[in-house]
C-alpha cells in the first residue's frame, strides 16, 4: 500500500492547502470532495480487511458506491473493538487513544502513520474559527498538553495551537506532577488584566467547571481585556456534576467578562482527524449576524441519520451525526457517532449524546441493572 498511500496523502494535502479557508457547505467543492472521498474509500476497502468486511456486510463496495454519501459510516466503537488502519500500526508516527472512561482496557485507538495530514487539517481552521482577526494571541491552556499525554489528540491540538499562534507569554497550567495549577492561572489572568492584553483560554469543557468552582470558593472574578476569548471542547457529558452549557456560558460572562459570542466550542473526537467549530467568533468578527451553529472545514461533510434506519433524515430533522473526514485516510473516512444533532443552512446544531432507554416496567435492560447495583 506504500506507494498508493503516499499518493493519497499528497492528494489530501493538496485539497487541504487549496481549500484551507473554505468550509463544508461550499457546494462547488462537492465534485472534488466526492472523487477524493471515493478514492480513500477504495484505499481503505482494499487496505483493511476488517473495514472491508464491515462494508461487505452492508453490501457496499467501491463498485457500488458512487457518491460520498453512500460510503458506510463506521460506528466509532470499531476503533475500540478492532484495528482500523491500512498502514502497519507499528510504524505509526502517533496513536491517539480515547480516554476509556468506562473500561480502561478497551480504549479506542486511532493510528496516524504520519501526523502531517492531521496537523495540516488542524491549523488553518483553528485560525479561521478561533483567531480570524489576529495573528497571535496569549494562550493559557487548562488541560494536559502533549508533554503530559502523548496519546491524546486534544493534547496535541492544544500544543499545536500554542506553537502556531501563541505569543511568548502563552503558558500551560496543567502538568504531570502538579495537575491543574489554578493559582498559577489566577495570577496569569491578573497580569493580563493589568497589561490590558487579551488572552485566549483553552481547555476541556469540564476544566472550566473546576476552575470556576475554585474562583467561586476563593471569591475571584476577572475583567479580562476586550477581545479575550474562551475555547472549550468535549462538552459536559458523562461527568458526575450536572452543569448545562448555558450555565457555563453565563458563568464565563460573570467570572471572565467574556460574552457568548467570543466563546467557542470545538467539536472533535479521537476517531476523527479534523475538528468542527462554533461559528461564533468568525461571524462576529465579520460584523454581520452572529451564527451559533457549528461547521467543519472543506474536507469534511456531515450526514444526519435516522437512528432507527440509519438512512439520512430530511434536512433539519434531528438524528445521529455521521462525519465524513478526508483527513481520516488511514482509518475510516466516515464515522458514525452517538451524538444527536440537526442541520441548518449555516451548519449544524449539536444536541448531545444519545441516552439509552429506561425500562417501562419490571423488565430491565442489564446495563441499567448494573448501574443500579453499583450505585448502591
Amino acid at each position, binding site marked *: 500500500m506504500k506507494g498508493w498511500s503516499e499518493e493519497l496523502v499528497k492528494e489530501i494535502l493538496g485539497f487541504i492547502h487549496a481549500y484551507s479557508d473554505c468550509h463544508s457547505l461550499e457546494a462547488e467543492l462537492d465534485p472534488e470532495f466526492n472523487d477524493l472521498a471515493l478514492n480513500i474509500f477504495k484505499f481503505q476497502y482494499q487496505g483493511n480487511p476488517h473495514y472491508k468486511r464491515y462494508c461487505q456486510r452492508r453490501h457496499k463496495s467501491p463498485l457500488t458506491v458512487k457518491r460520498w454519501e453512500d460510503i458506510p459510516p463506521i460506528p466509532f466503537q470499531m476503533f475500540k473493538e478492532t484495528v482500523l488502519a491500512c498502514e502497519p500500526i507499528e510504524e505509526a508516527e502517533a496513536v491517539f487513544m480515547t480516554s476509556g472512561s468506562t473500561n480502561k482496557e478497551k480504549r479506542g485507538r486511532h493510528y496516524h502513520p504520519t501526523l502531517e495530514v492531521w496537523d495540516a487539517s488542524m491549523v488553518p481552521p483553528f485560525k479561521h474559527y478561533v483567531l480570524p482577526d489576529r495573528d497571535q494571541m496569549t494562550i493559557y491552556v487548562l488541560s494536559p498538553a502533549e508533554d503530559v499525554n502523548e496519546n491524546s489528540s486534544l493534547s496535541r491540538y492544544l500544543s499545536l495551537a500554542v506553537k502556531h499562534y501563541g505569543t511568548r507569554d502563552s503558558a500551560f497550567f496543567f502538568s504531570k506532577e502538579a495537575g491543574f495549577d489554578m493559582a498559577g492561572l489566577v495570577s496569569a489572568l491578573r497580569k493580563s488584566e493589568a497589561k490590558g492584553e487579551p488572552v485566549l483560554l483553552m481547555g476541556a469543557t469540564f476544566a472550566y467547571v473546576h476552575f470556576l468552582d475554585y474562583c467561586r470558593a476563593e471569591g475571584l472574578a476577572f475583567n479580562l481585556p476586550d477581545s479575550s476569548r474562551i475555547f472549550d471542547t468535549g462538552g459536559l457529558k458523562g461527568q458526575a456534576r450536572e452543569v448545562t452549557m448555558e450555565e457555563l456560558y453565563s458563568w464565563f460572562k460573570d467570572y471572565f467578562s467574556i460574552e457568548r459570542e467570543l466563546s467557542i466550542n470545538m467539536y472533535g473526537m479521537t476517531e476523527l482527524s479534523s475538528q468542527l467549530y462554533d461559528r461564533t467568533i468568525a461571524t462576529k468578527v465579520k460584523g454581520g449576524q452572529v451564527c451559533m451553529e457549528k461547521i467543519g472545514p472543506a474536507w469534511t461533510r456531515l450526514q444526519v441519520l435516522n437512528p432507527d434506519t440509519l438512512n439520512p433524515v430530511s434536512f433539519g430533522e434531528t438524528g445521529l451525526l455521521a462525519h465524513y473526514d478526508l483527513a481520516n485516510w488511514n482509518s475510516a473516512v466516515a464515522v458514525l457517532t452517538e451524538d444527536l444533532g440537526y442541520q441548518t443552512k449555516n451548519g449544524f446544531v449539536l444536541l448531545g449524546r444519545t441516552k439509552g432507554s429506561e425500562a417501562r416496567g419490571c*423488565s430491565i435492560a442489564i446495563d441499567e441493572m448494573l448501574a443500579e447495583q453499583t450505585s448502591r
Partner: protein
Amino acid sequence: MEQHILAYFVPKGICIDIHEEHTFGEYILEFPNLSSAQVMELSTRLRLNRGKYLANLKTERIVEIIDKTIQLWLNPQYPLRKLAETLLPMITAYDAEIVRLELKRFLRGFRKKDLYRFLDEEFDNPGMLDNFRPRKSGGFTRVYGPELILHFFSGNVPGLPIWSMIMGLLLKSAGIGKTSSAEPLMAVLFAQSLAEVDENLAECLAVLPWKGGSAQFEDLLLERADAVVIYGSSQTVEKIKNKVRQPIPVLGYGHKISFAAVGQEALTADRYQDTVHRLANDVSVYDQQSCLSPQLVFVERGGVISPRQFAQLLASELDRYEKRRPRAKLGDAEIHAIRSLRNRYEAMAISNSEIDVYASGGGTEWTVVYHGRPGFEGSPLNRTIQVFACQCLEEALSHLRPYRSYLQSAGIAVAPERLEALAHCLAQEGVSRITAIGQMTLGVAGWHHDARFNLADLVRFVDIERSAEQLAELYDPDVE
C-alpha cells in the same frame, strides 16, 4: 363520533373534576384532577363499603362474581373488550393482534377453576377466609385479608393490573390502584365490568392515575393502607417501600431478568424448527417488556443445528413475526439503546469470529447477537436477544451468579431426565420459575410470583388455640 372514556374508576357519589384529556383517534381519555381531600374521602368510603359488603361475602361468592366478569370478557363481542382491543394498541403502541391474543390468554387464567387454584395453592383450607376452621394440631385458624390495599400498577403489560386487583378481592380487601401513564385503561375497564356483575363489589374499588411520587395524597394513602403492592422498576419499589412507616405487608415486584435454555434434545431434525418458533414467540410477545420475557438464550451444541445456525434461524423467525405482527414504534431512547448495542457488537464481529449480529435490515425491528461461548448479557429489549452457545447447559449456569437477585424465569427445552437436575441448578442460581419455552410470557394461576405467595403474604393468620377452645368448654353452663 367522539367518545369520552374515563381513565379512572371511583365508587358512586364521589365527584371528580376532569383535568386533562388525551385523544386517541376518536376516543378521548379523561384524566381526573385529584385533591388530597377527595382521595382521603375516597379511602374512607372504600373501607366503609368493604365493611358493609365485601367483608361479609363468602369466598365462593367472590369467586363466582370474578368468574362471571371474566366470562363477559371472554366473549369477543363484549363492548368493553372491543373497546380495550381498539384502544390499548393506540395507547401502548403494541401490535393490535398481539394485544387481542394476549389479553384473551391472560384473562382466561382467572376463571373459576383458576381462582380456586390460587386459593388452594396458598391456603390449606380456603374456607379459612370465611370462618375459623379447625387445625390439624388443634384449635382453629381464620385468615384476614387487609382492609385496604394500595396497588401501584406498571404499564408494561396491558391487563397485568387485573392480577393484583383480583388477588385483593379474593382476600376481601378494598383496593386503590394507581395506574401507570403507559397503560391507564385496562384496570378501569375491568372495574367497570365488575360493576356490571356486582355493583356493591365494585364499590370497594378505585382506580386512579397520578404521577408516582408527585402527589401529596400518595403519602397519606401509604399511611392509611393496610397493605401495599408495587409493580415497577426496582427504584420505584424501593422508593415506595421506604415511605411505608407502619408494619404492614409490602410486596414489591421490581426489575427481573428472564432467559431461555435450549438443550440439544430440542435441536433434533424433527424438533428444531418448533423450538426456534417457540422462542421467537417468547421474544416477540409484548416486545420483551414483560419481566417474564427472555433477554438471552443458552443454546447447547450437539444438535443437528449449531448454536450459530440457531441464531440465524431465530433471526428469520423474528423477521417473519415482524411481518405478521410488527413491533411497537419506539421512542428515541429505546432506538438508541438498540442501535448502540448493534454498533458495539457489529464492531466486535469484524475481528472476532465468535461474535455475530443478525439484524433487521431496515430499522431496529429485531436483533440477534450471537456469542460463540457462554456468558450473560441482557438486551435493551424490544425484540433484541443474545444467543450464547455452550457445550452443555450446566456449564453456562456459572455465568448467572452475579445476576442472582434479578433472575426470574427460565424457559427450558430439555429431555425429561434432565429436567429436575437442571431445575435444581437453576434454582440454586436464583431462578424462581421454570417454564416451557413458548410459554414464557404467560404466568399461570398459583405460581409463586418472584418466589413468593400472591395471597398468603398479604394476610394475617389468627389462631384460636386448643386451650381457649378447651377452656371455653368449661364455661358451658350445661357442662357435666
